[in-house]
């Protein structure tokens, strides 16, 4: 019996002292392998007389069990150590910069144009397009601005050269998006609700003017479209666009040749520490021009002003982009400075929507 317990002690201490999985396996083979010491002893059981075997059997089985268990425990321990060591060796400086993805950006003008479209679409307006090089007729005459109208000079018009025919006036770069109104009404000859965003051009370049900028034209024609409707549409638009709970608009009489009556529209705001807040405060800021479509304009497109009436407005996209997103200088919009594009540009995933919000 002593030799069994000695055997057990010696294996257990060997297992205890082992320092690698290989070593443990070798001990297992030495003890429990086909030719292992304990296996050999167990094999000898067969040759033993039955009474002795009855005693030795359970003892050897216990021994085998104990050794097996010790080996299992030791193996697990060693595995854990190995893993610990591996994990230690696999330490990585994760403070290193992440891999860069090169995300592009959407220009604020494009983004804001989409915002504007989203809101007006919800109000039932469609989007109309028109040419940027326009005939004198569409840019002026049809809009009730005849050749000698003093208003013509206020547009700082760019003319396209090369038209040799003296009787035909030169084509122009459209000075406003209003010609799109004319083209659209000529086509539909009746009720419509459209906006027309796009580039417009005026020969003016200083701190606050660029020779190209962006407007969105609005037009609604119907049998009972009133100036009160105009105010409502603009109020709805401004509230949604500037993303405030309430806004206040102030209509102020003005003059545009293609609307009668005409109104400049101011929005209530405050400037606190150079920060603009829309909808509160005691300042008013002019944001757009509007009015009821002039009967001469309706006549020009073949719509009977005795049957139909409508409103029109024109809004500077660049300007409302500057106001909403705090972009200081109009000229920087068209300079394509990569720093500016990345800073003020919008993420590819920023889709304006009514259900999720006009901006992120």
């Amino acid at each position, binding site marked *: 019996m002593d030799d069994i317990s000695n055997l057990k002690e010696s294996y257990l201490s060997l297992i205890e002292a082992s320092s690698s999985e290989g070593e443990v396996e070798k001990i297992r083979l030495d003890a429990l392998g086909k030719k292992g010491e304990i296996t050999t002893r167990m094999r000898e059981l067969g040759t033993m007389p039955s009474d002795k075997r009855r005693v030795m059997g359970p003892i050897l089985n216990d021994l085998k069990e104990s050794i097996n268990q010790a080996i299992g425990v030791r193996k697990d321990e060693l595995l854990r150590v190995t893993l610990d060591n591996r994990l230690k060796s696999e330490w990585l400086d994760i403070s290193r910069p992440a891999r860069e993805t090169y995300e592009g950006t959407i220009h604020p003008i494009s983004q804001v144009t989409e915002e504007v479209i989203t809101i007006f679409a919800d109000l039932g307006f469609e989007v109309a397009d028109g040419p940027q090089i326009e005939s004198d007729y569409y840019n002026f005459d049809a809009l009730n601005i005849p050749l000698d109208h003093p208003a013509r000079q206020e547009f700082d018009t760019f003319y396209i050269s090369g038209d040799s025919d003296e009787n035909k006036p030169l084509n122009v770069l459209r000075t406003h998006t209003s010609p799109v109104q004319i083209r659209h009404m000529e086509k539909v000859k009746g009720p419509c609700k459209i906006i027309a965003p796009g580039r417009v051009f005026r020969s003016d370049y200083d701190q606050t003017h660029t020779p190209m900028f962006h407007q969105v034209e609005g037009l609604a024609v119907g049998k009972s479209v*009133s*100036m*009160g409707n105009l105010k409502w549409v603009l109020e709805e638009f401004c509230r949604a666009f500037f993303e405030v709970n309430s806004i206040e608009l102030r209509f102020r009489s*003005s003059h545009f040749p293609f609307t009668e009556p005409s109104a400049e529209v101011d929005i209530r705001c405050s400037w606190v520490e150079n920060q603009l807040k829309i909808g509160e405060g005691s300042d008013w800021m002019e944001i757009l021009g509007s009015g*009821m479509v002039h009967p001469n304009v309706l006549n020009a497109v073949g719509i009977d002003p005795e049957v139909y*009436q409508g409103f029109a407005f024109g809004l500077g996209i660049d300007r409302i982009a500057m106001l909403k997103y705090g972009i200081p200088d109009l000229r920087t919009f068209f300079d394509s400075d990569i720093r500016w594009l990345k800073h003020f540009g919008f993420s*590819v995933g920023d889709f304006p929507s009514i259900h999720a919000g006009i901006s992120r």
Partner: protein
Amino acid sequence: MKFTISWLKEHLETDAPTDQILSALTDLGLEVEGTNNPLENLSAFTVGQIIEAEQHPNADRLKVCRVNTNKGEKQIICGAPNARAGIKVVVAHPGDYIPGLGKKIKVGNIRGVESLGMMCSERELMLSDEHEGIIELSVDAEVGCRYVDQAAGLEIVVDIAVTPNRPDALAVRGIARDLAARGLGTLKQNKPVKTVGNFESPISVHLDKSVTNEACPLFVGRYFRDVKNVESPKWLREKLIAIGLRPISALVDITNFITYDLGRPLHVFDADKLAGVLLIRKAKVNEKIVALDGEDYNLKAEDTVITSGGVVESIGGIIGGLKTGCSLETTNVFLESAFFSSSSIAKTGRRLKINSDARYRFERGVDPRFTEPGIDVATKLILDICGGEVSEVVKAGKLSKSKERIIFRSERVESLIGLKIPTSRQLEILKQLGFSAQKQDNNSYFIEVPSWRPDIHGEADLIEEIIRVTSLTKLNGSPMTEETVGSKPPILTPAQKRVSFLRRKIAAYGLNECISYSFIDEKSAKYFSSETAVVKLLNPISSEMSHMRPSLLPSLCSAAKRNQARSFKNLKLFEIGEIFFGGGPGQQRVNAAGLLLGDYSERNAFKNERSVDVFDAKQIVLGALKDVGVATEKLLLKRDNLPSFMHPGRSGIFSIGHKNPIAIFGELHPSLVDFYDLKGATVVFEILVDSIPFPKKKRLARTSIRMSEFQPVERDFAFVVPADFEVDAIKKAVEFTDKNLISEVRLFDVFEGDEAEIQLGANKKSVAFMVKLQSEDTTFTDGDIDAIGAKIITSVFELTGGVLRS
């Protein structure tokens, strides 16, 4: 248009505070652009009195003054010749802002003597140009009081923006009329007094047939003799100075005053310099005049001129001639009041670029019926100020009788505006503005338009007047009724939707969207124009912006150049916008273009740096096209007919069939890389968005998908082929070998160049493909795979003569 409040009150009886007047003006459509309130600017200044003025010890022209001020006695050094003991002066203390100097004054030390303040001249207070001496206040001025409380004639100057439809508001009286209609006072009676002449005018007036019909239907004049063209009286000078006009002489000042006061431009000739009869006619070609502004003008047949003895003495309604202008020596005067039509004035004024007060008013429309009263008003002022005798009035031509009459239905106000205003109030407003109404039937009126409102032609104009005077601030928003109920259909057209899609798709490849000017310089326009015609602006803002762009690429190249100059070398830019292929409406199309330059990624620790190349552009183009419904696998890649701005060996055109190119991509031609001074190979693409056909029908159901249960097998093949053989053809040949079993062919290596030719032979390269085999119904045996392999090798050999690389 500038005026002062007191001037306004000469026409308007009112107690309304200034603030209320200003906000009413803006609300009426006469937008107050600014006010200059000397009362505010000058409130710090106080009255002082010089007790003693001694010669400065170290400066001949300076005096050391002891001055009694609100802060006690101060020592002030002064250089004014009139600085002397006893006079009352305007004192500024150290720290006070002097508007005429544009700065605050400090304690000074002038040649060793301390100066604790300043005594001001009119110029220093911006009251006038007067700087000969300091202001001397009246002896009654109380020392220590605010200067503004003592000063006479200081008042608020208002500057309003007058829209082109309101020539009547280019006169103080017209402004007063609007305010009276608003209820801010009553318009004062102002009936010009007629003065009977006591001799026949030695100068007669004749209108030529060329002008009577349109350009100048009425010309009235009058001769004055023995006048003294003195300096204008103070009240007149102060008025003109206040609104920024320089007083010249009484005769000239009177005409300027009447222009601003009543909106009636007048002209005074020095009668002794006229030859006799005045003939008003159209100019002859190449007639000339030296005008009052000292400039020479060449005239054309469209110009209306006033001639005397065959010589042009004035450009009618625009500017007088220098020779016959009035000076202080003038003793005999011919006064002109004429009516010139706006279109004729506009043409001449625009061509000659003369911006005079007369042109400004005639162009917008002067009251034709005030032509003769204008003479009366001027006559009285001239006789009062300059003395002398006046002749009978001479007159040529006449005005047409008809006044504008409009049918007006009062209920239209509510239906157009959405605001209820009682008919009686509507008519009251119109009456206040000078309209007269005659009832036609229930709620319908004949309205006669006053002669000073050339802008009023129809009912809508009357409605505007009514709502303008009522105030648009009373307007409430009222919801629009919606025609469609429930979920709305999309409103973007397919073309609009596609552009918005492309924008985000291209940006997703890491490109930053730019918006550039649509006009570029001439050289760029020519380099990038495939057509011979370039679209040129007649009046460009600069030579850098003289031509409409035929492509988006020059804008991007210029942007890249600017960014590189700022040391930003790695650029990925794109723009979607209109380009122009002709100078007419509609000769434009939408393109989407990109430019890549420098390294694909910034330097980093992952060692994956590389330069951008053609295949980046190709990737973006194919990705974008696929997203907007182009079957990119069916596109032709063409290398002929490349535009000259592209690198001939490193560019291609994607085309649908042979006739419809829809995109170009590749490297920019090296000579243009040099032209734009770009550092490095410049990779560009341009998608001709409008050339992409729309799918015939929107297809929602996807095609079926086949997902085999069996293991795919991958085999690699490397072929040695001629160096200039395009790899795409080889790839296609492999794919076509067995379309059922070959599910993918992927080029994974190209070995070419000198080293390759040493190993493989002259003009050879090696191309290696991974071929993936996938069966729907079986697992491949080695035999199957070998058989397909053999077929692939044969196909490639037949196409290229190339063999498997050993």
